[in-house]
């Protein structure tokens, strides 16, 4: 079953779509079982003493897999239009790596133990490298270098030793448990070090100081950045962090050792700083990238509250932010395809030219900011509750500040686009004809934008899945 | 560099000397090495088990025959190694050594003397090989002497003449055949159902009982050794003395 997830559609889009729908279908097949709260296991041969390649489908993984695979379809559709629109080279390689990375994402989502997680994590890093450097020019290469060096470097330097440490300490067992993998007798210093090693080691979560790969990876074609920043990579990072918190340490142990605050401080710092940086960015994609850094820090922050609300908020935020941010990136891409504009300053008055896109952009940014009636509201709300529950008012304040900052760096774009006239063409406003990006681009982004809305109205599924882990 | 070398050497020497304090005294007949069952086994049982009074030969060719086989192989490797490193086949006189008149070795007297003593040297060498069971000697010593005799011939009559007697191809064949004799003899034991180099297996095809079979087999392997050593000694000389051209001797 999972094996199918790893199949590589070597051929073209048709196969890709087929695979995508297959994947989604399978996940939906597994959905009811998971909803009944039981946990599916698929184990392959043991590769290390006591450690099999194991897949374990539980609520959190389910939620993540759902988001990823459903958005994958849209991304595929979108990238179809995008690649065709720009007549990119090497489309075969592109789609192969694309599918590969998504499969790796699912693998991470369903990984049953740290080793499996790690393996798929590395596969993901490697398979996205060609995507990031797709353009093959100098800029892309340097971007790719930072990308790979950050991701591989941190994972090898921090995660691997931490993992082996757990392996040794836990007597040769790395399976995720509902309780704690490590016994409480490891000192709080060691625990803190290991926890930090994990949280920073999964650099895909973009926590500072290991965030700089994210803006650099913006050289990639937009579908890729959409994939990276909304669906696959970054979410894998935070997902791994959540896994470590809940599955390896167990919230209780962390509470006992009282080591979460450090993480939360790092996260808070990241949130504020990244939002401030985002304000200064003119390149739209870079701005979005920094906002992603911030949003991811939300998730880590939420987990580090160690309260069920916090975890719920984080888990939900994975989904919500995914929909919101992918919309934004789709829009950015669509603008680029249609007009070739990359910079925020150029987008003044663009709303008349591409209303649908800019509307979607508006919705997406609202969802990110977390205003009702958009999905983002739920997660923000729960994060907030979590903060209060953990009576860390400072953090709550941070959340509010950052939301304001979100507004500051996101909203102006659509507002300017709609209500201000493009400077070069004052006078003959009426003559501007609507010139949207190709259909294949516009449809998915509108879908996701609406999805953000729907997620506000029907969040039950997400909650059910999340409660599977938070309750108890 | 020099000073570091000196320091390293001194450290090594100090280490080694530090160990000598708890060594048994020299000439101590009760030192563990000398009164260990192994050596006493060699001394006491050798003659009874192999009918060879010269224990060194017995140990060399029988108890540790496996070692000696590889020892022969070492010589062989040295021979072909030298050729592989030094010999340049792409020369004017690569395959056929053309005679050079100025390469006629020593003067008349030297040639005359050599022609007198060469036969005796070679006979003595063969004696050393054959009589290794009862007196100091054996394949290596005899082989070296035999090789030396050819080297002497080369010195006296010029390498090219010596090469006529003992051409490079023939040298290689001799060397290989020597090891063939040794190893093949061991394999023969294998074929007769005993372990490798277990000469007792061959008593059916050799005169005398199993013990004599060992004794005889030792002679045979020694002959094999002698073959190889002779050939390689000469090949070493002829290559080294001519920088691998094999044309013009010293």
């Amino acid at each position, binding site marked *: 079953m999972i094996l199918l997830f790893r199949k590589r559609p070597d051929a073209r889009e048709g196969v890709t779509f087929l695979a995508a729908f297959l994947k989604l279908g399978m996940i939906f097949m597994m959905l009811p079982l998971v909803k009944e709260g039981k946990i599916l296991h698929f184990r392959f041969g043991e590769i*290390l003493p006591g450690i099999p390649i194991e897949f374990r489908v539980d609520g959190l993984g389910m939620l993540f897999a759902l988001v990823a695979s459903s958005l994958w379809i849209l991304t595929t559709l979108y990238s179809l239009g995008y690649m065709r629109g720009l007549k990119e080279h090497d489309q075969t390689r592109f789609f192969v790596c694309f599918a590969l990375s998504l499969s790796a994402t699912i693998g991470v989502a369903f990984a049953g133990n740290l080793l499996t997680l790690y393996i798929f994590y590395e596969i993901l890093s490697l398979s996205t490298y060609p995507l990031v450097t797709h353009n093959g020019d100098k800029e892309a290469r340097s971007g790719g270098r930072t990308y790979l060096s950050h991701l591989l470097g941190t994972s090898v330097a921090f995660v691997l030793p931490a993992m082996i440490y757990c392996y040794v300490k836990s007597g040769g067992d790395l399976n995720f448990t509902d309780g704690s993998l490590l016994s409480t007798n490891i000192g709080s210093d060691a625990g803190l070090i290991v926890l930090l090693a994990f949280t920073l080691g999964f650099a895909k979560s973009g926590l500072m100081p290991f965030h700089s790969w994210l803006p650099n990876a913006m050289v990639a074609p937009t579908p890729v950045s959409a994939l990276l920043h909304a669906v696959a990579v970054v979410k894998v990072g935070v997902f791994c962090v959540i896994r470590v918190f809940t599955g390896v340490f167990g919230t209780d142990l962390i509470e006992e050792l009282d080591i979460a605050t450090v993480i939360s401080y790092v996260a808070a710092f990241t949130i504020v700083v990244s939002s401030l940086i985002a304000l200064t960015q003119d390149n739209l994609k870079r701005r979005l990238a920094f906002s992603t850094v911030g949003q991811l820090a939300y998730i880590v922050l939420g987990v580090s509250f160690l309260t069920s609300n916090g975890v719920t908020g984080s888990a939900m935020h994975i989904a919500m932010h995914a929909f919101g941010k992918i919309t934004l990136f789709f829009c950015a891409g669509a603008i680029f395809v249609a007009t070739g504009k990359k910079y925020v300053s150029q987008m003044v008055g663009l709303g008349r030219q591409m209303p649908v896109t800019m509307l979607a952009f508006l919705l997406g940014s609202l969802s990110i900011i977390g205003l009702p009636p958009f999905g983002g509201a739920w997660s923000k709300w729960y994060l907030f509750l979590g903060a209060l529950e953990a009576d860390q008012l400072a953090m709550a304040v941070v959340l509010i500040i950052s939301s304001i900052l979100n507004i500051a760096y996101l909203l102006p774009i659509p507002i300017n686009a709609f209500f201000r006239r493009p400077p070069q063409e004052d006078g003959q406003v009426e003559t501007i004809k609507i010139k949207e990006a190709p259909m294949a681009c516009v449809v998915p982004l509108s879908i996701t934008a609406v999805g953000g809305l729907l997620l506000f109205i029907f969040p039950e599924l997400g909650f059910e899945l999340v409660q599977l882990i938070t309750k108890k | 560099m020099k000073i570091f070398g000196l320091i390293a050497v001194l450290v090594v020497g100090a280490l080694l000397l530090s160990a000598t304090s708890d060594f048994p005294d020299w000439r101590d007949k009760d030192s563990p*090495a000398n009164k260990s069952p192994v050596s006493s086994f060699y001394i006491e049982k050798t003659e009874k088990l192999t009918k060879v009074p010269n224990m060194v030969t017995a140990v060399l060719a029988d108890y540790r025959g496996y070692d000696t086989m590889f020892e022969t192989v070492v010589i062989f490797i040295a021979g072909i190694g030298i050729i592989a490193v030094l010999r340049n086949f792409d020369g004017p006189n690569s395959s056929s050594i053309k005679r050079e008149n100025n390469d006629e070795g020593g003067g008349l007297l030297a040639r005359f003397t050599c022609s007198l003593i060469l036969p005796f040297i070679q006979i003595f060498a063969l004696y050393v090989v054959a009589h290794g069971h009862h007196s100091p000697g054996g394949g290596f010593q005899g082989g070296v002497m035999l090789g030396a005799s050819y080297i002497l011939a080369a010195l006296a009559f010029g390498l090219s003449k010596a090469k006529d007697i003992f051409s490079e191809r023939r040298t*290689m064949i001799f060397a290989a055949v020597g090891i063939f004799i040794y190893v093949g003899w061991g394999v023969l034991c294998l074929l007769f159902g005993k372990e490798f180099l277990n000469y007792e297996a061959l008593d059916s095809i050799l005169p005398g009982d199993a013990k004599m079979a060992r004794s005889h087999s030792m002679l045979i392997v020694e002959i094999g050794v002698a073959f190889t050593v002779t050939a390689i000694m000469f090949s070493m000389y002829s290559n080294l003395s001519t920088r691998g051209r094999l044309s013009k001797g010293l």
Partner: protein
Amino acid sequence: MTEHFPVLILLVPLFGALIVVLLGRERPDQCWVTSLISLGVSSLISFFTIIAVLSGKVQTLRYRMGGWPESDGYEVGIELRVDILAALVVFAVTFVGFVNTIYSKTRAGAEVRGKIPFFYALIQLLIVGLCGIVMTNDAFNLYVLIEITSLTSYALIAMGNRRAALSSFNYVIMGTIGASFYLIGVGYLYIKTGTLNIDDIRMVLGQNDLWEHQSIIVAFIFIMLGVWTKMAFFPLHGWLPNAYAYAPSMTGTFMAPLMTKVMVYVMIRVMVWVFGNEFVYSSQHVWGEIVIWMSVLAIVAGSLLALARTDIKKILTYLIVAEVGYMVGGSWLAEGIGQAGAFYHILSDAAMTFCLFIAASIIVLRVGDSRVNAFDGLFRKMPLTMIGFTVGALSMIGLPPTCGFFSKWYLISAGIEAGHWGYACALIFSSLVNAVIFFRIFERAYFGKISGVKEDHFPSDSDANPDIRIKEVPWSMLVPLFIASGSVILLGIMNRGLFEWIQTALKIMNT
């Protein structure tokens, strides 16, 4: 029949060498065929040996040369001893030799003009020597076999260009010092114990309780020094890089995977079999810490030196130095997982070094330039070769599921278990450095300008590029490469079983 396997493994290539020499220079092709057959048969036999040893009815094959029984508890003859560890290493050796012979088919003519029979004879004798080293149970016989391998490798290296000759000379000096140190150590053991058989030495050491005698300690130190010199352990590594880099490419591919690894095997064997863990790891000897820190030094220095090089073969040779550091450190960390991890790394490192060297020499052959920028655009020019190279490189970096990952895993966990963080960090560091090295190369190979094609515009989709002059190499080189890379993966996949065998075998030894 089974009981004769060990000696047969040795005899077949030995005869092969003789036949090759007898065939002479006129028939190079037959020389190749002969050595191919002999090495193939020998590796087949060693494979069956593994099966026989695993089948359990004979945990350890003992083979008494000349059929001499032991007299009151002492071996008077020479004895071969093959347990699962030896069987595995022997199989690795013979198999590498076999595959490499396939590889050398087309190259031999070009690289050793007119000396083909000698080349193949030396190669087979090298394999014989290595197998003998692994299987023998006699300390002095071990010395002789070490010298056999050394002599063959001196000659093989010196067959190259003039720099090869020079580095080979240094190798002669260093190698002789190493072997002689080993010989001195054995002599000290002999003078105290009066026997040369490894098991008997162990027995006598135990009976007379000679552990704390100065001479025994010195003997241990000198044997270790000798073995380290032969395996190019860090401060003594001077001879290796030049020797392997300038030797004929086939020679490099033969020796780089085998020599150092077999020497590491010898080291582990001496540590475990002759002296025993309680002596080696006993707390009142300071050397444990020292050696591990030296190995840390070796790893770091090897990686950095490799990083500083631009010549691909030099890079690989310095990486070997680092890998030797892995193994020495691992085996000195602790008994049990450390030793087993080091031993597993012997196999995996042999596989990946083999893979990388073959790939590198193919590329150098095709591109005609051994510097890193020879890799520009190679992914398009020689995709198959680059795939092989990539597998080896990933294994060097230590990414799953290649075997490099698992050996690192075991070694690091050993380091953490022994509480020796310096070692673990050094491993991590070196794998980071490897990542840098190889991804630099990948980037070149991936984006590098192909002659005549502008960088910003690759021909889309199709690999058919009109002006690619560099084509893939003949099958006789690609097949070995793929066998090598396949074995890298295979070792990784079946690491668990291997590891358990190794551990059990080591346990058997230590009891």
